[in-house]
């Protein structure tokens, strides 16, 4: 399995820490940050393939806002929304704003892995297309 970089954003530190450990154990380069602001600043310096973003309804920087910011900084990075709140408006908004998928906590780990891989594949496919287009332009 090729290693890819995942950024996990969640203020529930117990959850964050465990999920990072479990991903690391499976050779996925996982990094955890407890807030959207930190995620954005980190992403300005490091590339991530997939971001697992916890969105909340109340307080702080709005989850959807962070998603849009992420998409501005690294447009090819796929974002999976993960939340304990089932708000269909938020999920729809998220999908419209370019999220790859929307998962409801608690999520089965196997399912989470699958989604991460799918998102990674999509990104790769996207990049391949870009490269192919680029090569075409050169020749």
């Amino acid at each position, binding site marked *: 399995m090729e290693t890819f970089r995942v950024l996990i954003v969640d203020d*529930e530190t*117990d*959850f964050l820490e*465990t*999920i990072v*450990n*479990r991903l690391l*154990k499976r050779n996925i380069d996982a990094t955890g940050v407890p807030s959207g602001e930190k995620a954005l600043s980190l992403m300005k310096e490091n590339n991530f393939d997939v971001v697992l973003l916890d969105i909340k309804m109340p307080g702080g920087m709005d989850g959807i806002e962070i998603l849009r910011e992420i998409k501005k900084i690294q447009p090819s990075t796929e974002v999976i929304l993960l939340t*304990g*709140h*089932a708000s*269909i408006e938020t999920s729809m908004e998220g999908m419209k704003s370019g999220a790859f998928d929307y998962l*409801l*906590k*608690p*999520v*089965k*780990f196997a399912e989470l892995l699958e989604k991460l891989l799918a998102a990674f594949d999509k990104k790769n496919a996207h990049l391949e297309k870009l490269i192919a287009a680029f090569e075409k332009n050169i020749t």
Partner: protein
Amino acid sequence: MKRQIYANLQRKIIFITLLVSFIPLISLSVIIYYQFTQVFRNKIEEQIEYRARVQSNAIELFLKERTAILLAMADTYTFDYLAEKNKLERIFQIMNHRVGGFIDLGLIDSTGRQIAYVGPYNLISLNYYSQPWFREVESKGVYISDVFLGYRQVPHFIIALQRQENNRRWILRATIDSDVFESLVRAAQVGKTGDAFIINKEGSYQTLLRFGGEILSKSHLDPTLFGEGTTVLEKADKDGKKILYAARWLKKNSWLLVISQDASEEMTKLFKTKRIEIVIVALGCLMIILTTYFTTHLTIRRLETADREVNELNAQLVHSDKLAALGKMAAGVAHEINNPLAVIAEKTGWMEDLLTEEDFQKSQHFAEYKKSLGKIEEHVERARKVIHGMLGFARRMEPHLEDVDINEVLTQTMSFLESYARTNNIVIEKELETDLPIIASDRAQLQQVFLNLLTNAVDAIGKDGNVHLTSRRIDSEIAISVRDNGPGIPKEYQSRVFEPFFTTKQSGKGTGLGLSVTYTLVSSMGGTIDLDSEEGKGTTFTVRLPVVVPEKK
């Protein structure tokens, strides 16, 4: 209680309707009857009065004619001529020939002795000087007597007149034939009980009565009751029967012609009219009562049905409000539980990850750890299902519209359950209408709905049975029914099956969310769902979806 209100209302409407119908009807009939009676009575009185007038004129004429012919004879012939029997006989014949109605004729001298006589009685040479009529003739010249017995001892009356011939006064006297006179009077009588008779000033009968009553006997009528002209009055007879009398004075107010008539006999026609009127009014009343009753009955039944429908609608509204409130609450609870549950799930997963490392595998209780973690995971999964079910319920998602072939969705959903059903000996039959329209709906949600219903049906049966799946178009709806022959839902639970967390399945076997989610999904698609269940026979859930024609692309 409710029935009582409707019954009261019905009684009130009937009472008021009858009141406003009966008052005018009955007053009108009474007024018409009264007016009619008046008119009828006036007519009867007019008739009897008319007869009295006409007949009294006829009688007066009769008497005048006889008086005139007697006067003519007395003026024409001398005493000596008349005194001869054969001559008097000749004159008597002429008189009877001309006007008739005479019984006898006699010539009386001034001493009162009857000189000559023609007639059936032997009255020759009798002296009348002391008779009351003799004085009357002497004083008045012409005299018509009342009825008296006289020498012949038979009731009769006479016309007598006095003549002065030189120095001699004589009297010519004729007796009127009672039969002729009687029949003249009787001509005025009418009907089966009517009578016509004459009484004198003293109230004695001058003619025979129709039904008994001796001549010269005293009448029960008081002549002073009758005034000038023709008098009509009603009086009860000795049997208390009402008799109508019309009377008119004759013969210079010395005789009274009386025509009597049984009022009731004359009124028979009126009574007949009265009976007909009563029958008509009674029939009218009966028709009003029946019409009022049936109309009111119908109206009240309609009202009752309408009220019941409104109540049912209200109950449904309350029910949906309740479901919505429960949904909100469920969502709120879910939010609070999801995050800790996620931590538990991940921590457990991490521990499992760690257990795979070699050190732990050698541990004495490795199997026990592994098993416990498995249990934790199992129960987290159970909790997760509940919570996600709740959130599914709370979802008020705008359905994502796509072209859906209901039958295809049903067939596909059925296939998920086929192997499970087969192992439990459950037969799933389908009866799908072939050319159902393609509708615009949410395929995934529909699949969820059908899956929930089919799962419930299969679970309800348990083992050995059948599930009947039908689809058909009814007007602008597609109805999908899932019928099982399971144990059915007890009546007391039927109204609660769509509530979240309501389940009759064993603890841990069902979340109690399936039907509430189904309900919400169907509602959000603009459809309805209802159930029909009988204990011991089975349950049928019917989903009705509006036929929404997909937009042309």
